[in-house]
């Protein structure tokens, strides 16, 4: 009896499969034409995982839910991959995604060297690149692309906000600890320009191998010997954490030298602990506890892998995806899929609005504009618990926060 029933069921399933085959295939084709494919490319295993990683994908998925795009009958597929902070790995993934899987949008991509490689590829294939993770201001400068929007922050903004605050506080001579790749070089360059134009002086710098440096004490000793008033940390993630920790351990700041964390994320502060991080001045464009809207955003996003609060990079992925979906719903899926350039132009033509960054605009060179905040890390006494880390000490309005349009040397602007 059992066997009979099983045979029957198998037969029925087989018949259904056979009969249904042409039908599903036709519907799959129809679906493909009506499906937007998004690839989140970032660090899933290394030192930038917490500030981007799976949390970025979670933010994109939230944007899908909240945009209402699926209610319009449009399908959205999200895939994610680990670029291991290596440009060759990142390029290979993106090439496969676009050429083999028909991907429409590449998102996030922290690690500037990888982002610059992806930037070129996406432009060649006429797709869309929504860059939330990378820092280098070259993405809207010398290497700007009509297919790219640089969303969350950049090295110029950090230089102006954090660098400016420290120069104003009397830091005239600077020494840099620079992560030896595109991001570190860009950040050092942008901060140096800013310091020099404010009458300050760069007394030296040292390039630290990336990735693969865990001990920064040798480099910090060199910085201390330079007798600079400010040691600028042109690095990020785990490198910044180790630099700050070891500077405290070796009492690098005992002679009145100040440490400038030029790119510090909330996940770094959490790892350092307030005992070590207190008093640090840093810049971000998003903080979960900034206002009612950011708190609501964080609440809706829920718990991220590793039990962390969202970084500005993850918030940027949400904001960028949400705005892209608005453009797609506006222009229709076929047009958006046919030309990444048209989709980006449509995004540039619309003002942005979301809970993470408030109101904003996108400039012709691909720079997304929003306010930039200067924070100081709280003392352990001021903090009410884990993730209550920042005091807001200054705001640069969107119009002044980023490099002026004419100074970046972007070909899209001259044209």
């Amino acid at each position: 009896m059992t066997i009979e029933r099983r045979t029957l069921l198998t037969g029925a399933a087989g018949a259904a499969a056979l009969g249904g085959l042409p039908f599903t295939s036709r519907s799959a084709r129809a679906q493909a034409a009506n499906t937007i494919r998004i690839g989140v490319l970032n660090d899933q295993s290394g030192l930038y995982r917490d500030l981007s990683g799976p949390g970025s994908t979670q933010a994109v998925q939230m944007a899908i839910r909240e945009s209402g795009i699926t209610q319009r009958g449009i399908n959205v597929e999200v895939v994610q991959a680990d670029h291991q902070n290596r440009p060759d790995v990142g390029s290979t993934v993106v090439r496969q995604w676009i050429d083999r899987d028909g991907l429409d949008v590449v998102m996030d991509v922290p690690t500037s060297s990888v982002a610059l490689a992806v930037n070129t590829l996406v432009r060649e294939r006429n797709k869309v690149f929504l860059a939330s993770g990378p820092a280098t201001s070259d993405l809207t400068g010398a290497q700007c692309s009509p297919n790219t929007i640089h969303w969350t922050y950049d090295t110029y903004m950090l230089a102006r906000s954090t660098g400016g605050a420290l120069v104003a506080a009397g830091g005239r001579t600077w020494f840099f600890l620079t992560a030896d790749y595109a991001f570190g070089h860009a950040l050092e360059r942008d901060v140096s320009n800013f310091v020099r134009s404010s009458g300050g002086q760069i007394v030296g710098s040292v390039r630290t191998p990336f990735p693969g440096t865990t001990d920064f004490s040798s480099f910090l000793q060199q910085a201390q010997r330079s007798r600079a008033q400010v040691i600028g940390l042109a690095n990020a993630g785990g490198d910044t954490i180790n630099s700050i920790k070891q500077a405290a351990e070796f009492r690098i700041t005992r002679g009145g030298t100040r440490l400038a964390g030029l790119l510090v994320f909330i996940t770094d502060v959490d790892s350092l602990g307030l005992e070590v991080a207190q008093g640090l001045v840093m810049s971000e464009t998003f903080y979960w506890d900034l206002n009612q809207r950011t708190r609501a955003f964080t609440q809706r996003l829920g718990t991220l892998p590793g039990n962390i609060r969202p970084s500005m990079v993850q918030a940027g992925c949400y904001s960028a995806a949400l705005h892209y979906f608005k453009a797609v719903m506006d222009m229709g899926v076929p047009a958006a899929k046919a030309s990444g350039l048209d989709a980006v132009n449509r995004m540039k033509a619309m003002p942005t609005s979301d809970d993470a960054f408030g109101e904003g605009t996108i400039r012709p060179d691909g720079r997304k504009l929003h306010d930039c905040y200067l924070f100081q890390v709280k003392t352990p006494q001021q903090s009410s618990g884990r993730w209550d880390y920042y005091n807001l000490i200054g705001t640069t309005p969107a119009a002044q926060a980023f490099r002026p349009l004419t100074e970046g040397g972007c070909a899209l602007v001259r044209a």
Partner: protein
Amino acid sequence: MLETIIFELEMAAPQIVLGLVNGAFYALLSLGLAVIFGMLNVINFTHGAQFMMGAFVAWMLLHYLGIGYWWALILSPLIVGVVGVIIEKTMISRLYKLDHLYGLLLTFGCALVIEGVFRNNFGVSGLPYAVPPELRGGFDLGFMFLPGYRAWVVLVAIITCLVTWYVIEKTKIGSYLRAATERPQLVQAFGINVPRMMTLTYGAGVALAAFAGVLAAPIYSVRPDMGASFIIIVFAVVVIGGMGSILGSVVTGFALGFLEGMTRVFWPEASATVVFFIMAIVLLTRPAGLFGRA
């Protein structure tokens, strides 16, 4: 001219001290690797993960049970050592008769799994672990400030290396171990339980890694990939020193720490590569390593 030389020396002095500190970690880690390879003929790629587990267990002891640094220094190596014994009993012991490559692949796979589990549960940014209050001070050496904790690490590393060397080269247990490596059947015939000795040796090697992990916890953040960044250099150290040579790995560990420190002053960009450059030269000229017996 004299001024430049004095300036260069001033620059170099802190690097000599710092090189010694980093060398202490290289020496401790390569010591465990050398013990395991020398006695078991297994290339233990899980060593970095076990180093990381040592630090994490110390953090967990403090965070969940309120047990501080000094007890962690003893408990964490024991706990991680037991995990090592389980790995040896259930998996590695089955591979002794096969080529080295199988042990390498197995232990590498174990490392990936362990690191992945910790990454998913604790993130990558790392957890803070404070320096114990007894070791918080430091010494002003004139040319630099040396934190008391770093001095402690160097001291403990040197003592541990000496004790391990003594146990293996000068005691009865050590002589059994060395004999079992050369002629396991013969030693077994004398009534010594060779498989159990292998298991315990692996456990001891793993405990050494965990011990180094506890020492490292207050200096570096307690992160899932903290071992991965060390282990590659440590393997180079073991290869340069001579696979399985205990004295070789200790001396090479300190020497390379020093060399790396000097490179950080004179050619910082190359400081991550210099160890591998030396390794290539050693492999070309003395394939058995500086202290190895061919």
